C-alpha cells in the first residue's frame, strides 16, 4: 500500500477503571480497502473502533485522517470526518420510524426550522429502495421490523451521508444466510467506490472472503497485521488464540515473543 492512509491510529490506549481495554494499538486504513479486525470477545476490537467513532475518548495516542491529526471527542465530530459506524447492537432508536433513524442527529429541516418529515421520508424511500427494494414499512417504529430490516436501516444510515470511512461491527451477526450474502455484496460495492472499511467479525470465512488486510487483537493489544492473501486461516487462528505472529505478518506489541 502506498500513499497517505485514510485513517491512521497510532499507539491508542484507553483504560476503564484500571483495566487496559486497549493498549498502544496502531492500525491504518487506505481508501478502497477492507481491514478486518479480529480477536476473542473482550480483545478490545469494539473498544478500539468506538474510539474512532467518537463513542469513547482515548487516554493516549493519535488519530490521523488523510494524514492530518484529527480531533474526535464525540460521535458528531467523527461524522464530520465522514466516519460512519454500524454497531453490533445496530444502535437504532426503537420507537421512531426508519426515516427518523436514518436522519437521527442530522434531521432535515424546513425553512421554518421544523422537521421536514416528508423530505426525510422521500430520501429514506430512495436509499432503502437501493438497499432493500422489498422494504415497505416506512411508517412503523423500527422495533417492529425484522432483524434484516433493522440491519438495512442501520446500513442505510451509514452510507446515506457519503461516508468515506465505514466501521462495521459484526454486521452479519443477526442475519440469515441470504442477508449475509447481501451485506457481503454491499461491502464489495462500497469498496469499489473507494470507501475504506473496518470490518469487525468473528467469522473467519467473512474475513477471508472480504478483507484485504487483517489485524488481530488479543488482551487489548495488536498481535500483528498482515495481508489476508499472505495468511492462512490457521495462522490467523494462531494469532487469535495464542498470540503467535506468523512470519508473513508484521508483529505488534501484543505478539508472543518467540523465545528460541
Amino acid at each position: 500500500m502506498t500513499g497517505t492512509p485514510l485513517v491512521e491510529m497510532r499507539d491508542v490506549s484507553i483504560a476503564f477503571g484500571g483495566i487496559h481495554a486497549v493498549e498502544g494499538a496502531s492500525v491504518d486504513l487506505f481508501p478502497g480497502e477492507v481491514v478486518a479486525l479480529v480477536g476473542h470477545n473482550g480483545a478490545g476490537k469494539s473498544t478500539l473502533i468506538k474510539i474512532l467513532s467518537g463513542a469513547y475518548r482515548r487516554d493516549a495516542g493519535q488519530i490521523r485522517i488523510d494524514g492530518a491529526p484529527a480531533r474526535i471527542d464525540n460521535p458528531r465530530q467523527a461524522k464530520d470526518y465522514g466516519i460512519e459506524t454500524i454497531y453490533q447492537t445496530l444502535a437504532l432508536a426503537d420507537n421512531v420510524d426508519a426515516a427518523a433513524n436514518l436522519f437521527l442527529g442530522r434531521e432535515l429541516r424546513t425553512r421554518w426550522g421544523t422537521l421536514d418529515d416528508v423530505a426525510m421520508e422521500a430520501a429514506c424511500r430512495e436509499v432503502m429502495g437501493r438497499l432493500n427494494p422489498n422494504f415497505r414499512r416506512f411508517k412503523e417504529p423500527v422495533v417492529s421490523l425484522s432483524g434484516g430490516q433493522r440491519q438495512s436501516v442501520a446500513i442505510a444510515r451509514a452510507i446515506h451521508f457519503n461516508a468515506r470511512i465505514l466501521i462495521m461491527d459484526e454486521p452479519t451477526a443477526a442475519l440469515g444466510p441470504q442477508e449475509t450474502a447481501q451485506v457481503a455484496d454491499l461491502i464489495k460495492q462500497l469498496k469499489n467506490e473507494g470507501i475504506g472499511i473496518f470490518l469487525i467479525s468473528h467469522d473467519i470465512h467473512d474475513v477471508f472472503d472480504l478483507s484485504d488486510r487483517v489485524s488481530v487483537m488479543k488482551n487489548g493489544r495488536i498481535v500483528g497485521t498482515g495481508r489476508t492473501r499472505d495468511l492462512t486461516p490457521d495462522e490467523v487462528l494462531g494469532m487469535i488464540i495464542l498470540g503467535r505472529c506468523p512470519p508473513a505478518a508484521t508483529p505488534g506489541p501484543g505478539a508472543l515473543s518467540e523465545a528460541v
Partner: protein
Amino acid sequence: MIDSGPARTHWSRRLLDATELDTRMLGMVGALAVIWIGFDLASGGVFLTPRNLWNLSVQTASIAVMATGMVLVIVTRHIDLSVGSVLGFLGMIMGVLQAELLPQWLGYDHGLTWILALSAGVLLGIAIGGLQGYIIAYLGVPAFIVTLGGLLAWRGAAWWVTSGRTVAPMDSTFRLLGGGTAGSIGAMATWLVAGVVCLIVLATLANGRRQRRRFGFPLRPLWAEWVLAILGCGLSIGVAAVANAYPWPKRVAERYAEAQGMAVPEGGLVIAHGLAIPVLVALAVGVAMTFLATRTRFGRYVFAIGGNPEAADLAGIDTRWVRMRIFMLMGVLCGIAAAISTARLNAATNAQGSLDELYVIAAAVIGGTSLAGGVGTIAGAMLGALVMQSLQSGMVLMGLDTPLQNIVVGVVLVLAVWLDTLYRRRTG
C-alpha cells in the same frame, strides 16, 4: 369488548385504517364518555350540564398544562415528583410579588403587575427545573431521587416565603388567568375561536394531502379526509356551544348591566361565559407542546432517547442537554399552572398543588405515556387529565368523602395501566 359481528367489524376497521385514527385514543374518548354518562345518570342529570362541564374544563386546566410536560419527562424514562411542590412555591412567589412587593413600587392594580409576577414565576420555574435537570443529567443522580428531594424542599420553600401565611388578594388582571365570569371570553370570541380552529383543521388536512401528493406517498381516501374534517370541526363547534350555553349568574349580569348603563331586557339579561381563559391557555400550551414534540428536533430527540438512550448518544445527540432542557420546560409549565391555580383561588397558600404530582403523572400514564419510555402523546395526556378531573369532580358532585375519592382514583390508575398493558401486548 362485545363482538359486533363480521360485517360491522369490517366496516369500522376500514374507517379506522382509512382515517389513521389512533385506536387507544378512541378508547380513552370512550372511557370518558362512560364516566360522564355514568355520573350524569347517578347524579340525576347534574353532571352533563353546561355549568358543570364549564367548571370541569377550568378545573382541568392546571393539571393538563403540567401533564403535557410530564409526558416528555416520562418518555425519557424519568419521573418528576416535584411538580406539585414547585407549583406551590412558584404560586407563593407570584402571590407575594403581586400582593405585597410590586404594589410598593407600582401601586395597586398597575397594568404591569400581572406580567411581572407571571414572568418572575416562569423564570424561577426555568431555574428550578434547570437545577433539578442539571443534577439529573450531568451529575447522574436518578430523577426519582432528585425530584423526591424537590417534593420536600420546594414545599418547605413555599412555606418559608411567608412562614405559612396565605397571601391574598391577587391582582385583578392576573385573576383573569383563573377563569370566572370576568376570566371568560364571551360568546362572540368563543365562536370566533371555534371558527379559527375549524379553518386550521381544514388547512392542516389539505396541506398534509398536498405534501403527500408532492412526494407520491399513498393518500387517504377522500371520504376519510371528510370524516376527519367533520369530526375536528364538529368537536370545536360543540365545545364552543357548550361554553356559550352557560350564562353568567343573574346577579352578576345585572350588576354588569348597571355599571355599563345598559337596560336589563325583560326576562333577564343573558350573558354567556364562553371559553374560560385558563382553558384557552391550556389548549395553547397543548398545541405548542404537540408542535415541540412532533415537529422539532428537540421533540424527535426526546423520543429517540426514550426508545434507546445509547443509540441516541451514538447518533451524536447531546442527550444530557436534551434531558436538562426537558426539566427546564417542566419548570415553565409548573409556572403557568401555578399562575392558573393561584389566580383561580385568588390567593397563594403554601399547601397549593399538594398531591398534584400524582394527578399529573396519572394523567400522563392514563393518557398512554409508557413508563418504559419512548411512547406518549401530549393530546393523550391532556385527555388523561380530563378523565382524572372528571372522576374527581363527579365524585364531589355525588358527595363522596375525600378518602373514598382517593381510593377510587388509586384503583382507577392501576386499572387503567393494566388495561393499557393488555392493549400493548395485543397490538405490540
